[in-house]
């Protein structure tokens, strides 16, 4: 997918200016509330007309004020998954799914209904109404409905923000898998750094109606770590735990980590904030934290008033954050050895 957007749109005192060209199958648009993200996707979908400029998707002009082109939304083949699922309450799950499919010209239909239903695990829901579905089920149906419209681009406007954490991490694999499985590029809009890392390969960063940079989700998360209240969220892939001294010992690559919470699953993912890691230059004599990992410093990076430290812990990567003084006092340099201490209660297990 190649998208070129050079537009201007003013709403009262707010003006959104876009001037970028981006390529890739998984593109993110990041920004806080009021940065213009939703206006951008609405212009792309044809729901809001820019004041001036040009929007070109894969060589096809969707909008051009100079050439007086403005394709209607139904002509653009750009489907959207909204923040609120916006399912049609008068239709069953199956008829919601088929709404866009029926309106797509037969020669453009490449997505098999049964295959999609299988990937999204919606078989059992097809005959049901949509009002009594859970939040996660509704968002899966909304995703399926958008995919079945056989779009050339899928827009996801904060599709996870209305869901709680447990549902959020249940839906993310579906969003990625379905798009990759059926070869549909997407533009993912969010104000969550973790979602950007997990969902996108290229990220456009907007603030107050202006694009600041084009980067990657990973780089964005690192650069915003210092100013983020939650820091950088390390996502740790863990194996099945075993009991140990009243705690739970999880295999993590070549290391083991002690948690206060256990899990029955063979594999799971845990969150660990960069703020919850304490670095020691030498092995401490005694420490209350139950996890002490010997690590090698791979690199340092600036992030606002903080310094990020990328650690190699027996082949695994951890990002910790420290202040500049700590870097000087501990003489933390790339290649040096440090000890990372983490309390057993600092981890947060993500739902399956």
């Amino acid at each position, binding site marked *: 997918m190649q998208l070129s957007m050079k537009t201007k749109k003013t709403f009262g005192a707010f003006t959104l200016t876009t001037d970028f060209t981006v390529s890739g199958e998984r593109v993110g648009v990041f920004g806080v509330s009021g940065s213009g993200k939703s206006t951008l996707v609405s212009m792309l*979908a*044809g*729901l809001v007309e820019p004041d001036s400029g040009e929007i070109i998707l894969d060589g096809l002009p969707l909008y051009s004020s100079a050439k007086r082109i403005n394709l*209607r*939304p*139904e002509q653009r*083949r*750009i*489907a*959207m998954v*909204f923040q*609120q699922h*916006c*399912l*049609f*309450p*008068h239709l069953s799950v199956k008829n919601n799914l088929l*709404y*866009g499919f029926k*309106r*797509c010209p037969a020669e453009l239909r490449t997505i098999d209904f049964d295959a999609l239903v299988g990937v999204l695990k919606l078989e059992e829901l097809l005959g049901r109404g*949509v*009002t009594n579905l859970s939040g996660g089920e509704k968002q899966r149906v909304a995703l399926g*409905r*958008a995919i079945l*419209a056989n779009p050339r681009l899928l*827009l996801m406007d904060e599709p996870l923000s209305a869901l709680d954490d447990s549902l959020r991490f249940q839906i993310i694999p579906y969003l990625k898998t379905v798009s990759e499985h059926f070869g549909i590029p997407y533009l993912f809009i969010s104000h969550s750094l973790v979602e950007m890392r997990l969902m996108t390969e290229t990220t456009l960063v907007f603030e107050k109606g202006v694009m600041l940079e084009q980067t990657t989700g990973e780089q964005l998360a690192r650069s915003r770590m210092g100013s983020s209240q939650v820091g950088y969220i390390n996502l740790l892939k863990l194996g099945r735990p075993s009991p140990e001294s009243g705690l739970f010992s999880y295999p993590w690559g070549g290391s083991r980590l002690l948690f206060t919470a256990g899990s029955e699953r063979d594999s799971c993912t845990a969150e660990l904030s960069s703020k919850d890691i304490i670095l020691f230059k030498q092995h401490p004599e005694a420490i209350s934290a139950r996890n002490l990992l010997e690590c090698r410093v791979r690199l340092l990076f600036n992030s606002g008033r903080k310094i990020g430290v990328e650690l190699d812990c027996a082949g695994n990567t951890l990002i910790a954050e420290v202040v500049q003084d700590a870097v000087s006092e501990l003489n933390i340099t790339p290649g040096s050895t440090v000890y990372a201490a983490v309390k057993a209660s600092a981890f947060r297990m993500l739902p399956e």
Partner: protein
Amino acid sequence: MFLADSDIQSIWLTVRLALAVTAILLILGTPVAWWLAHTRSRLKGILGAVVALPLVLPPSVLGFYLLLAMGPGGPVGHLTSILGIGALPFTFWGLVVASVFYSLPFMVQPLQNAFESIGEQPMDVAATLGASKLDAFFTVALPLTRTGFLTASILTFAHTVGEFGVVLMIGGNIPGVTRVASVQIYDHVEALEYGQAHNMAAVMLIFSFIVLLVLYTWRPNAMKMSRRD
């Protein structure tokens, strides 16, 4: 017999009038209500006020102006003469035209409320799924606002049935042509036929009560269904 032939004739005429007005207003009122629900134009206030005028205007005032407009010297009367239809006052279709104006807010306002309650997002979703505006209206907006359509239709029908001032001004009192139920009751009272006036009034009373009963018992649940998502 409970009702005289002339009473039944006036009731049948009233039903025909109410059906015609409801059907016409469904067609004319829907786009007006849609526009009022979605526009950001400055004209919204003006059109909204015009639509609501019959709610506060004395029926005789509206009837008077309509009589002037539809009479031989009025612009509408001139137009109907050119078209070969002739003058509308004191005809059934004159009553229909007058009643359409008089009942306009009873169709438009419930529909406008219904359209506003569903917001713009369902239409936006439908558009991004490939539906044209007309397609989205019939497959999304209409089903989601069916309660509003039923309410508006019932209110319009009931209000037309109960008209008196406007129909008397425009239609007069021609049996089988313009003498509707409310005028028939008036006639009975003037002729001191209180028994027949009672019978007709009872029919109207029961009809009005049933309409309101249906609205107040069935409508809240129906509205809840359309909004629960």
